[in-house]
């Protein structure tokens, strides 16, 4: 693992729809691709005991998280015939309705992209040390836990 270049998956703040649109546009020169599958995680304005979540503040054990993202990436390329794969995760404040996770897989054929995308998203939820503080409208907070 130490030999391979580990990318930084994190972006400060929300991931914009323009950024996602541009990522899609960049793949139009890759004419061996027949199918893309994109997962977007969006911050929900959950209501918990009459208080509404207005944002999530993300922190991470960044070195370990990037190493885990790298492992997930390698495992997915090993397991599935993918042309390319991109993962972006927010750090800092992401408001309700904004996007905090963007996973993008592409392959010549469709069947593989469904399996690959679910594998990657489930692995991110289970294995990557990212922490989320749900901020309520009254500025109190609670800690998010993945289910």
């Amino acid at each position: 693992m130490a030999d391979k270049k580990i990318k930084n998956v994190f972006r400060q703040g929300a991931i914009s729809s323009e950024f996602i649109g541009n990522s899609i546009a960049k793949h139009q020169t890759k004419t061996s691709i027949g199918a893309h599958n994109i997962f977007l995680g969006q911050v929900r304005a959950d209501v918990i005991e009459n208080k509404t979540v207005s944002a999530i503040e993300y922190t991470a054990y960044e070195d370990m998280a990037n190493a885990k993202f790298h492992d997930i990436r390698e495992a997915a390329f090993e397991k599935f015939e993918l042309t390319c794969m991109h993962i972006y995760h927010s750090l800092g404040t992401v408001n309700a309705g904004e996007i905090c996770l963007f996973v993008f897989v592409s392959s010549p054929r469709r069947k593989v992209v469904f399996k690959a995308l679910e594998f990657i998203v489930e692995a991110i939820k289970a294995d990557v040390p990212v922490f989320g503080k749900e901020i309520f409208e009254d500025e109190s907070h609670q800690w998010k836990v993945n289910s």
Partner: protein
Amino acid sequence: MLITIKYFGQIAEVTQKEEESLEFSGALVSELIEQLYEKYTLLKNKDFKVAQNQELATLETLISGNDIALLPPFAGG
């Protein structure tokens, strides 16, 4: 042995710091946890995992002293 521990999320809320160095005379992760429970009583109510060298450790893992971190439940995505 002097070890450095990183704290994250709600664990850092309990310890009120993100990192500290402390003297550890035991051998196993379980012994380190006991020592931290003594220092931070509220930790006992918290769910966390211990990572060493950026890999999750178990209670029986030997402490080598490198890159130790207390990780609350993951919430990525």
